[in-house]
C-alpha cells in the first residue's frame, strides 16, 4: 500500500456520469416542482410568482384530498400484501423447480414486464368490461351482468398483476443465496416441511420480501396508468389528481403541491416500514 499523498479524483470521475444524470433528470425536476408548489395561482391569469402555502393548506384541510390519499395508500398496501402472499410462495416453488421448467416459468413470471403497462391496463378493461368475456361467462352461468370496472378491487387486481415480478425477483434472489442443506437440517431434526419453511426458510428470505414490498408499495402508491384507465373518472388516486390539476384545471402549483405531498408520504411510509422490519433482523442476518 502506498501512502497516496494526493487523493486521486478517479472515484469522483467514475461516479460523475451517474451523478450528473441523477442531478439533471431527478433532482432538478424535483426542486422545480417543489418551488412551483409554493407559487400563487389565479384562475384568470394562471400561476404568478408570489409565495404561498395555500395549496398545501387546502390539500391538507380538504377531506376530498385526504380521502384520495387514504385510498391510494390503502390500495397500495393491499396490492403489496397480496403480492407477498402470491409472490413469495411463487418464488419458493420456482426455486424448487428443475430446469428446463424453471427457466420456462421464470420467463412466464417476467414476461408481463415486456408488455407496456398501458396495454395491460387496456387488456384488463376489455376482460372486465360490460361486454367482456368475464361478464359473458357470468351471464352464461346465470349471475347476470356485474359492474367490474372502475372499482377499487379492479385497480388492486391489476396492480398486483403488474407488480408481481417486482416481488418475485428479490425473493427469488434471496432464495438463491440460501443453503439447501439448511432446510434439510431442519427436516433432519424432525421439523415438518411447513415448520421448516416458516421457522427456517422464511426468516432468511425476509430481506428479499422487504425489498420486494418496498418496490411494490412505492410503485403502486404512485401508479398512474392503472388507476387512470381502470379507476375511471370516479375512483381517483393521488397520481391521477396530479394529472387532473396539471392538465384539466391547469392549476400547476396545486398539482405540484399534491405531488410533493405524495412523495413525502410515500417516503415516510417506506422508511418507517424499512426501519421496523430491518431493525428487527439486522443483528441476526448481518
Amino acid at each position: 500500500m502506498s501512502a497516496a499523498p494526493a487523493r486521486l479524483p478517479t472515484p469522483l470521475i467514475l461516479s460523475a456520469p451517474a451523478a450528473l444524470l441523477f442531478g439533471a433528470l431527478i433532482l432538478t425536476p424535483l426542486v422545480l416542482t417543489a418551488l412551483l408548489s409554493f407559487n400563487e395561482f389565479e384562475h384568470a391569469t394562471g400561476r404568478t410568482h408570489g409565495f404561498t402555502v395555500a395549496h398545501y393548506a387546502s390539500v391538507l384541510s380538504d377531506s376530498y384530498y385526504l380521502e384520495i390519499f387514504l385510498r391510494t395508500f390503502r390500495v397500495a398496501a393491499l396490492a403489496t400484501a397480496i403480492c407477498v402472499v402470491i409472490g413469495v410462495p411463487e418464488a419458493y416453488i420456482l426455486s424448487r423447480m428443475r430446469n428446463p421448467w424453471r427457466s420456462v416459468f421464470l420467463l412466464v413470471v417476467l414476461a408481463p414486464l415486456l408488455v407496456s403497462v398501458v396495454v395491460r391496463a387496456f387488456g384488463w378493461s376489455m376482460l372486465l368490461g360490460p361486454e367482456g368475456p368475464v361478464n359473458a361467462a357470468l351471464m352464461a352461468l346465470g349471475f347476470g351482468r356485474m359492474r367490474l370496472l372502475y372499482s377499487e378491487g379492479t385497480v388492486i387486481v391489476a396492480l398486483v398483476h403488474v407488480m408481481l415480478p417486482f416481488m418475485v425477483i428479490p425473493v427469488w434472489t434471496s432464495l438463491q443465496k440460501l443453503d439447501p442443506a439448511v432446510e434439510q437440517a431442519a427436516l433432519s431434526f424432525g421439523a415438518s416441511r411447513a415448520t421448516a419453511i416458516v421457522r427456517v426458510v422464511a426468516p432468511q428470505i425476509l430481506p428479499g420480501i422487504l425489498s420486494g414490498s418496498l418496490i411494490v408499495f412505492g410503485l403502486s402508491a404512485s401508479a398512474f396508468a392503472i388507476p387512470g384507465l381502470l379507476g375511471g373518472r370516479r375512483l381517483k388516486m393521488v397520481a391521477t389528481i396530479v394529472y387532473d390539476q396539471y392538465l384539466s384545471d391547469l392549476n400547476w402549483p396545486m398539482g405540484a403541491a399534491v405531488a410533493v405531498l405524495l412523495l413525502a408520504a410515500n417516503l415516510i411510509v417506506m422508511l418507517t416500514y424499512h426501519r421496523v422490519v430491518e431493525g428487527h433482523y439486522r443483528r441476526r442476518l448481518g
Partner: protein
Amino acid sequence: MSFLELQDITKSYGTLNAVSDVTLSVEKGEFVSLLGPSGCGKTTTLQMIAGFVEPTSGTIRLDGRDITHAKANSRGLGIVFQSYALFPHMTVFDNVCFGLEMQRVPKGERRPRVEEALELVHLAAYAGRYPRELSGGQRQRVALARAIVIRPPVLLLDEPLSNLDAKLREAMQFELRDIQRKVGTTTVMVTHDQAEAFSISDRVVVMESGRITQIDQPYRIYEHPETEFISRFVGKTNLLPGTVQAVNDRAATVSLGGVPVEIDAGALVRGDTVTLCIRPEKLRLTGSGLGRLPGRVAERYFLGSQWLYHIDGPLGTLMAVTPNDGSAPLDTGEPVGLDWTPSVVRVHRGRLAEAPDPTLEAH
C-alpha cells in the same frame, strides 16, 4: 443383528448407478467411515441413510426397524452437514435447541440439555451468539452439538472437517472421536481424507465407483489393501509390475523387468502376472552396495517428521520414507542400497491397469 444395516442398497439415476449393491452392518456405538474419492457414492449412501435420497432398491434397517422409505423428519438421526447448515437467524442456543423443540421435549428439560451439549463442545460461553459471529471451527462445534443434543440413535457426519484449515482439522479429529466416545453414539462419517478416516474410525469402508471394495479396520486396510486402487488411494505406495519366475514351498521369485525379487509364496503359480506393492516407509536405505537393490538419490523432500526420497534404480524411481532422527539426510546424487523384509511386500494379481492419477482422483 447389527444396529444399522444396509442391505443391497442401489441408487440409480437413469442408467447411471450412483451406488450399487452396498451392504454394510454397523454395530451399536461403532465409528464407521465411508472413504473414497469424490463421485464414489459415499455421500449418496449417507443421504440414503439420512432419508434425503430414496434408494432405488435394497433395504435400510435401524435397530431392526425398516426405515428404507421413512421420511427424513421421522428418522430422528443427528446429521452434521458439510456446510454445517446452521440456522443463521438463530442464536447458538436456539440452533441447538431446535431439535429438542421439534421432538417436543418438555420446556424445562431443554435448557439443561442444550447447556450440556454446548459444554461438551466447549462452547458454553457462546450460547448467545449468532452463527456469523463464530469462526469456522466454532460453527463446526455448534453443528455437532446440535446433532448430538437430540440423542440420535445414529450420528451422520458429511465431510465434517473439510472446511477447516489443516491444523484445526487435526485437532477436531481427535476431539470428534473423544466426544463420540463420551456420548457413545453410533457414527457414520463420509470423508475423502484417508488420514481423517484412519485416525478416528473403528472401521473404514472404502468405496470406488458406487461399490464397496473393502471394509476393515484402518490398520488392516493400510497394510493389506485388497485392490491396487486401495493401495494407491490409501497412502503412498510403490507399484511394481512383474512375472512369477519360480515357486517353491515358502517363497516365490518374481522378475521385475529382469530384476529377480523374492516374496512370500501365497498361491502363486509360475508365469503369473503380478503387481508388487511396497509402502515407502517399509523400504530401508542402507549403505551403497548393501541391500537388495542399488540406487541413487534423485530427489529428497523434507516432511518435518520424515524425509521422503525418490530413489532411481533398476526398477525405475521408488519412493522411500525415513524418520527424521536428527541426523544429516542423504544428499541428492548419493548412491544407496534398498532393502526390505519379504513379508512387507503385498502382491496383487494381474498387471496394473493404466490408472488415473491418484492426486487428481483423491479429491
